[in-house]
């Protein structure tokens, strides 16, 4: 038996020491990894083990001012698949597709994706959820989810807006108050294996979501209903393109109701309400659809500007009264024209039968442009601009909705030429938004304070506890209370005796002002397209509501603000004042008026001057509200029709044979004196430009030519 050598034993000991050293080093390495770097490595490991699922917070409710729910979240289930847990994809796909009425292949593709979780269908019905739960399919989960629900459908939709599929507010208050409404989403943390299946350990954590805050709006659901109904009716009756109505509480700036028709149902914001449109839209491309959607969602009341026309006269009058430039009984004379502006002749709406001598009050009643041009001149361009701006025109009102426009007013007094000042005084040549106008009227009504219009009063929690309350904001003082009072008196007269009598409610003290403006499309007055409007305040002794009705492009024949917008305002006001429990007080005169009736005579086919006289003689009033008449204009139609019994003092609308592109024969002017030429052209109501001095040398158009009455005439003179 050979013995191991001594050297072998030495080498063994040497190897042993080396090996032990290695092991000690490895223990050291383990200590470093497990203890020193332990936390860091654990973090990496935790990251890969844990999967977070967002728990949605419940979105806050939108209430009306009386606590009625205008928008709320209802629970609706969502179906999720966790593909790794699905044992039999074919069978599962078949069952799920059957219950949810989906395509089997679509479901199969979803549940076989290489992901941890996959959404199959959002917001299924309770019946579907129940049936699916009964099937107990492994890997198919039914999760409670929230869906936004607007119980009244297309109701205040431009105010409320809507949310997307993830409950993010996209439009309206849902958008502006999104941060409050959303709340803080929670998280469900669970650990999973490398294939995303949940681990059998008790280490899931749930961080509860904190629910969103509810908002209390200034909207009064009842008044909003009146307004919605009235707007819908006006849209249909007048075959209009759009109808906007805003009701505001003058003292607080609270928007009580706001609607634009047509609108949409926020429950289905991408579907038009009109069945025909629905069909049309099916063939549109995505880009075209987007355009249509944004048009449908556009809140005309704050995002569109228009020429206010005669309703703006209240601003001119308020400025004059506040500056003590005029009083309601100041005298003015209307001869039908403003002729002293070089190159233009401005006409009163009743130039063919001039108003003659009037007080300012009467001028307002008659909506006489001449009175207001003169008044505007008295105020002067600096003050005109100052008050226009003071009333909030040319700046956003600050209403809590997105997309508000500022409108267009002259940048400075220097920019206001003579003609601009003249037209501005009766509301032409500036652009305003509906919300600006109603806010300005509210300023007149509330004693002179320009308010910031608001839609939200308070934020409350689930139990109804107040979290935050917003106070009304006075932007600035514009008028003194006495001016406000005088203005309200004038507006009441407009409704009682003037162009606004269709808004008259017996026993109620309603003030208002009519407006009819020809639409400007691409910088030009568009023939046959009008905007009829009416602003109102009621009751004038204690204003509770300021109202604006705008009917855009009425196409059913009538288009005067006093004719089609005033009755709409009247209906809304009557219902609203009744709802607000304002007691009617009838004057003796009213009692008499209510009983005294007359039959409307037939004035059709009469010339305007003649027919007008017939009507005034029997105690009726009439309106044409049309700027481009000739004295030869013949009455084509009248409303009400002949032999209708009406109350004394009612207004008869007259429609004349004015057609667009009406023509005359160009007279011979060559060789005539300048004064002679002016006289001839003025008689024909033509716009002209005169060049040089002396006798007329050349004229354009040539004599005898048939010309449009709107065409500008150029006459050149040369000295002799």
């Amino acid at each position, binding site marked *: *038996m*050979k*013995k*191991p*050598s001594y*050297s*072998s*034993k030495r*080498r*063994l*000991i040497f*190897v*042993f020491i080396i*090996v*032990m050293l*290695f*092991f000690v080093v*490895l*223990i050291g*390495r*383990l*200590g470093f*990894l*497990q*203890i020193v*770097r*332990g*936390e*860091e*490595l*654990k973090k*990496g*490991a*935790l990251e*890969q*083990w844990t999967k977070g699922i967002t728990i949605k917070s419940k979105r806050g409710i939108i209430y009306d001012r009386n606590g009625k729910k205008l928008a709320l979240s209802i629970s609706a289930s969502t179906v999720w698949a966790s593909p790794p847990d699905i044992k039999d994809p074919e069978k599962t796909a078949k069952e799920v597709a059957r219950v949810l009425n989906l395509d089997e292949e679509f479901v199969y593709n979803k549940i076989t994706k290489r992901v941890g979780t996959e959404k199959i269908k959002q917001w299924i019905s309770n019946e579907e959820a129940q049936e699916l739960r009964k099937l107990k399919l492994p890997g198919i989960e039914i999760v409670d989810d929230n869906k936004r629900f607007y119980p009244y459908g297309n109701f205040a939709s431009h105010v409320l807006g809507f949310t997307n599929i993830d409950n993010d507010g996209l439009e309206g208050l849902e958008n502006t108050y999104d941060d409050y409404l959303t709340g803080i989403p929670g998280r469900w943390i669970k*650990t999973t*294996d*490398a*294939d995303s*299946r949940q*681990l059998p*350990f008790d280490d899931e954590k749930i961080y509860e979501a904190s629910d969103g805050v509810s908002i209390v709006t200034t909207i009064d659901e009842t008044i909003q209903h009146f307004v919605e109904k009235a707007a819908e009716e006006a849209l249909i009756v007048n075959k209009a393109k759009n109808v906007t109505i805003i009701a505001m509480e003058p003292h607080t700036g609270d928007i009580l109701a706001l609607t634009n028709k047509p609108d949409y149902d926020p429950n289905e914001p991408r579907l038009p309400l009109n069945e025909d449109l629905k069909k049309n839209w099916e063939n549109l491309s995505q880009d075209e659809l987007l355009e249509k959607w944004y048009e449908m969602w556009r809140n005309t009341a704050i995002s569109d500007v228009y020429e206010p026309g005669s309703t703006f006269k209240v601003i001119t009058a308020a400025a004059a009264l506040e500056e003590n430039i005029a009083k309601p009984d100041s005298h003015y004379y209307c001869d039908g024209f403003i002729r002293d502006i070089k190159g233009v002749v401005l006409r009163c709406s009743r130039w063919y039968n001039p108003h003659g001598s009037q007080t300012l009050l009467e001028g307002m009643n008659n909506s006489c442009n001449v009175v207001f041009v003169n008044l505007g001149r008295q105020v002067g361009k600096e003050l005109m601009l100052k008050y226009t701006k003071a009333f909030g025109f040319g700046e956003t009102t600050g209403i809590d909705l997105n997309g508000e426009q500022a409108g267009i007013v002259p940048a400075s007094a220097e920019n206001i030429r003579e003609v601009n000042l003249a037209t501005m005084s009766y509301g032409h040549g500036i652009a305003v938004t509906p919300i600006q106008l109603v806010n300005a009227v509210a300023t007149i009504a509330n004693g002179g304070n320009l308010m910031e219009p608001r839609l939200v009063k308070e934020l409350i929690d689930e139990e109804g506890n107040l979290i935050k309350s917003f106070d009304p904001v006075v932007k600035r003082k514009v008028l003194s209370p006495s001016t406000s009072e005088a203005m309200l008196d004038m507006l009441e007269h407009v409704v009682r005796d003037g162009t606004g009598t269709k808004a008259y409610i017996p026993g109620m003290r309603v003030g208002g002002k009519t407006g009819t403006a020809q639409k400007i499309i691409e910088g030009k007055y568009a023939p046959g397209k009008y905007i009829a409007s009416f602003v109102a305040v009621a009751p004038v002794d204690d204003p509770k509501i300021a109202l604006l009705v705008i009917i855009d492009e009425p196409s059913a024949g009538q288009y005067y603000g006093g004719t089609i917008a005033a009755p709409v305002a009247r209906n809304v006001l009557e219902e609203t004042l009744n709802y607000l429990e304002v007691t009617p007080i009838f004057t003796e005169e009213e009692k008499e008026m209510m009983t005294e009736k007359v039959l409307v005579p037939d004035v059709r086919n009469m010339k305007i001057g003649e027919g007008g006289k017939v009507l005034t003689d029997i105690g009726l009033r009439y309106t044409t509200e049309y700027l481009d008449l000739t004295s030869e204009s013949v009455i084509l139609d009248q409303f009400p029709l002949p032999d209708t019994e009406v109350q004394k003092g009612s207004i008869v609308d007259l429609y004349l044979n004015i057609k667009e592109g009406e023509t005359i024969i160009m007279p011979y002017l060559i060789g005539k004196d300048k004064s002679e030429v002016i006289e001839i052209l003025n008689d024909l109501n033509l716009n002209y430009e005169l060049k040089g001095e002396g006798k007329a040398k050349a004229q354009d158009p040539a004599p005898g030519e048939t010309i449009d009455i709107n065409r500008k005439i150029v006459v050149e003179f040369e000295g002799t």
Partner: protein
Amino acid sequence: MAKKKALQRKKAVDFTLLMSTLILVFVGIIMVFSASWPEAMQDFGNGYHFLKKQVIAASIGLGSLLICMNIDYKIWKKYSLLIFILSLILGALIFTPLGREIKGARRWIDLGITTFMPSDAIKIGSIIFFANFLANKKDKISSLVHGTLPALIIIGVACGAIYVQKDLGTTITLAATLMGMFFISGMNMLHLIFMAAGAVALGFLAITGPENEYRLKRIIAFRDPFAYKLDIGWQAVQSLYALGSGGLFGLGLGKSRQKFFYIPESYNDFIFSIIGEELGFLGTSFVIILFMVLIWRGIKIALSIEDAFGCFLASGITALVTIQSLIHIAVVTSSIPTTGITLPFVSYGGTSLMVYMSAIGILLNISRHANLDRS
């Protein structure tokens, strides 16, 4: 009378070695059970699948250990050549229809009722044969012609038989084991230096060359595993995550998250990571200390036996355990590039467990013949 004399000479075995071995096997069974549960549930619907096989292997291994413990180790010297050739034949069987491929590697032979991994047999076979060779050539070991060259041929044949199975980890383990034995037996130091240079050159060849690209990748991944977290660095990173999340005390027995398919086949080449995750630094240190005790006793036995064959055989068996456990732990701790090596006694694997336990049986028998200060 002769029998009585024999009984008198039959001393007790090394108790410490036996105990540390049995504790390691026990820890192994528990950890294989824990680590294999998720995969066993997924693939077989039975969480005890791997546990059952490991317990059976451990029982057979224990029987084999007891038998080997009581067979005079000198019998192995007598049949050493036969054993070596048999083990090589077993290795060659892989390439016959009996060979069986599992998870892309052809390293098993199918015995009908179970599979068998011949590389484990080759390991022990070549150790016995090489111990015999070294004992026979004891005085000429330092000579080139009689010592180094034949030794290298034996090592080459043994390692070649494993290398053809495309199992570099095991090849290196065996090569290092046999070189260790050669070194202890008294190899020429000058030859060692040349061989070391040769090994470096071989190693370089093994990681370069187009067909060995995967080895180069492993080295790249080793240098910064987190940069290749999702592909080639995946295993290393997952192993580090397991160790790190274990911390000092561990997540608790059975509570590993990493065994849920983050570490594939965690009951095999990464069992030590799971030990680290579930039992913490205390657990890993305990296992390492058990190995240190086992190795200490093995070397003690080698030092105490007054027989060259016994000394080299004891050294070889101890070296095998040492090298393989060192490589496994080094891989798991990202101390060396990743290679698939099981942890002796602990990792799942029937053949390995039975062969290792038998080897310890042989070592225990050697201890009977040694003059140990048994305490």
